[in-house]
């Protein structure tokens, strides 16, 4: 039975959202649960797999019985090596079509037929080709480790806000990296509309279906890595509706009681990381597909995938080495802490920063970032580092000069250290090293390292 694919654009607060529904999809690309104790031995860990065709690609261990607020342990499996030619050619063809001018709905149509049943959001977004922790994504997941930013519900951002995933997980093993291909992609990436196709997996992380070499070239050439994103809409969300307060009459102003909180019967709608769609806004058939479908399910060839899970690639250790400048640039890219903070805070005025420096967490009776002072400093630093480097440096130096904020010195110094070429910072750290003042005790080592590195770089 061929897949039934429908696309629809809905209007959400003046913004159009492109949705695609897939019915009777082949289920050749997707995620599925794979038991509890298969690898970790711990029954509280739930294993999820991202697969392409019959090949397991990414193993996602969800701790605490799949707690959606917990970061996941991610590791790369044998990966998609392109043995399934049909899948490989369809994905390649889709990227070519997108770059020859096709719209997302048309260009990705062949990929939709390979997805699991459900409703997906399509959009274009810039991605940082890192794991969200300063490591270039390709080859960054060879060992299973907890990856910050992979939790479905981000504690810093909160459940009520939406965010765009922006970090990558590879689907092709690093063995597939070829310097000769890089020569071609270096030219191609300059003129492309879309550099890659990604499928959202969890939290801030998406699997790169196509565009691995392109991502390397984009980083080398400082070209934004623009991706076509496929994001499944599955999570129910509930919002408390507070009815608009009636204008208070002068006489009755004192008697006016606070407006009652009105609870919507049932959930408000379904969401993915980047969009919240109220039930009423969904096209009817798409809503029926979500309500009557599964978030994820095992494909028919699940046993084949599981059987391949334990296989070790012959060329498990590759001699292919990614260009050093790419790895270095990846270290400088925003990490998940910074991106989280940017989504959690809209803006920070100078007055608010001054309040934080004075040890207050409130400004004009409102909490600036968080009631917790340490958390406020951390989030503010990350937000400034992401949005305004100059203000970040000034704020960081002001913190480190204040001995009363000693508890935050170590964290702030380590974060600011990433700005290796900043002269103002060099001046500050040089003075720290030279002064030998006891108030700088916690940042002395970091300061020495920074000064040494700066001076070596000349």
């Amino acid at each position, binding site marked *: 039975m061929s897949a039934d694919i429908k696309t629809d654009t809905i209007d959400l607060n003046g913004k159009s959202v492109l949705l695609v529904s897939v019915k009777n999809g082949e289920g050749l690309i997707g995620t599925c*649960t*794979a*038991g*509890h*104790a*298969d690898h970790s031995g711990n*029954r509280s860990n*739930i294993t999820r797999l991202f697969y392409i065709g019959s090949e397991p690609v990414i193993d996602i261990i969800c701790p605490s*019985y*799949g707690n959606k607020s917990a970061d996941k342990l991610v590791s790369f499996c044998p990966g998609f090596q392109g043995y399934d030619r049909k899948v490989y050619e369809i994905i390649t063809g889709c990227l070519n079509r997108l770059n020859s001018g096709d719209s997302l709905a048309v260009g990705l149509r062949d990929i939709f037929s390979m997805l699991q049943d459900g409703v997906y959001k399509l959009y274009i977004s810039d991605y940082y080709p890192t794991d969200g922790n300063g490591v270039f994504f390709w080859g960054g997941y060879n060992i299973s480790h907890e990856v910050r930013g992979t939790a479905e519900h981000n504690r810093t951002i909160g459940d009520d806000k939406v965010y765009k995933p922006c970090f990558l997980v590879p689907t092709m093993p690093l063995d597939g990296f070829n310097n000769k291909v890089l020569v071609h992609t270096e030219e191609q990436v300059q003129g492309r509309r879309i550099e890659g196709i990604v499928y959202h997996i969890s939290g801030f992380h998406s699997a790169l279906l196509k565009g691995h070499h392109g991502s390397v070239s984009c980083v080398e050439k400082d070209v934004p890595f623009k991706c076509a994103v496929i994001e499944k809409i*599955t999570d*129910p969300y*509930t919002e408390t509706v507070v009815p608009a307060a009636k204008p208070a009459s002068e006489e009755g102003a004192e008697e006016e009681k606070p407006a009652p909180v009105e609870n919507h*019967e*049932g*959930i408000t709608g379904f969401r993915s990381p980047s969009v919240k769609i109220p*039930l*009423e806004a969904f096209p*009817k058939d798409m*809503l029926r597909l979500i*309500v*009557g*479908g*599964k*978030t994820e*399910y*095992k494909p028919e060839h699940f046993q084949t995938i*599981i059987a391949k899970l334990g296989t070790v690639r012959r060329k498990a250790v590759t001699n292919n080495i990614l260009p050093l400048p790419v790895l270095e640039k990846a270290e400088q890219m925003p990490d998940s802490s910074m991106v989280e903070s940017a989504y959690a805070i809209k803006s920070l005025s100078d007055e608010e920063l001054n309040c934080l420096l004075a040890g207050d967490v409130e400004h004009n009776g409102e909490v600036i970032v968080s009631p917790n002072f340490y958390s406020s400093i951390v989030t503010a630093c990350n937000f400034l580092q992401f949005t305004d480097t100059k203000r970040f440096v000034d704020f960081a130096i002001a913190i480190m000069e204040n001995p009363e904020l000693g508890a935050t010195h170590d964290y702030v110094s380590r974060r600011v250290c990433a700005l290796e070429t900043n002269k103002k910072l060099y001046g500050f750290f040089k003075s720290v090293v030279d002064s030998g003042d006891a108030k700088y005790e916690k940042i002395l080592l970091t300061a020495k390292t920074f000064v040494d590195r700066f001076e070596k770089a000349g």
Partner: protein
Amino acid sequence: MAFSDLKPVTAGDDKTGCTYIIGDVFAVYKMGLPTPVVYSWDMIKSASVSRREIVLTTDKDSFRISYKMFSTVEDELRAIANIECRQKEYGFSYQHEKRLFPLKSMYYECSPGKDTYTGEGLLDEAETAAAFIMLLNFRLMKFLWLVALLIALVTFGVLNFTVGITRDNILYFIPISVVSGAIAALIINIVAHAIARGRFKSLADGDLASRQPITFVVSKLGFAACESCVYQGRDLVPWEEADYFIESDKMFIIYKNNSAVAYIPKRAFDKKFIGGIADIIALNLEQK
């Protein structure tokens, strides 16, 4: 979560025109309304599964889904399995009738491994009733001889009190006392058997699974006794969930908190595997 691939189930109420969907969410399509009311499972306060209907209760509403609303028995079983799995995840209160097989909330998903024995079959009424009786005998035999002895002594005493024992009649009184003790024990046994059979009947009547093909799995990691239409091949009840087992000539009966959680008939497996199955169970549970 176990049974993670269970398909959502739709039930339609012809009288009210409502359609219910029990799956990853619980949705209610009310007649005349364009948009359904959808509840995530954390909004469900309680669920109850009785012989006639499923009742799901939220803060504001209570939804009664009669079994007649489902198109097939398989759908009913899938709906119940969905609810039991969600109950484990979200912890809402759950009332249910006594079961012949483990609740779905006891299962977890895993690869059963190499040494796994799988069988399938209907639970035979006569066999299971016999197992019930065997269990009863197991308990009753401990004191049935005592009851017979007591009755014999009482009879002997009554005869002495009413007639009076002499050298002439004592040879009659002793056999009369012994026989009356034996008859009393027999009557108790017959009544107990009738009760046991009745209990099984009542249990079987209240459990839809008693009339469905069941998949039985025994592996080193755990066991399963689950309706075949629901079972997905990777769900097991870990051995730690059970306390001990009893083996009869026809069944393995697995216990938790002194009540049977699973009846695993030997008939469901190939004869040559019974030894291996018994070994696995005995390695993991105490035999009584």
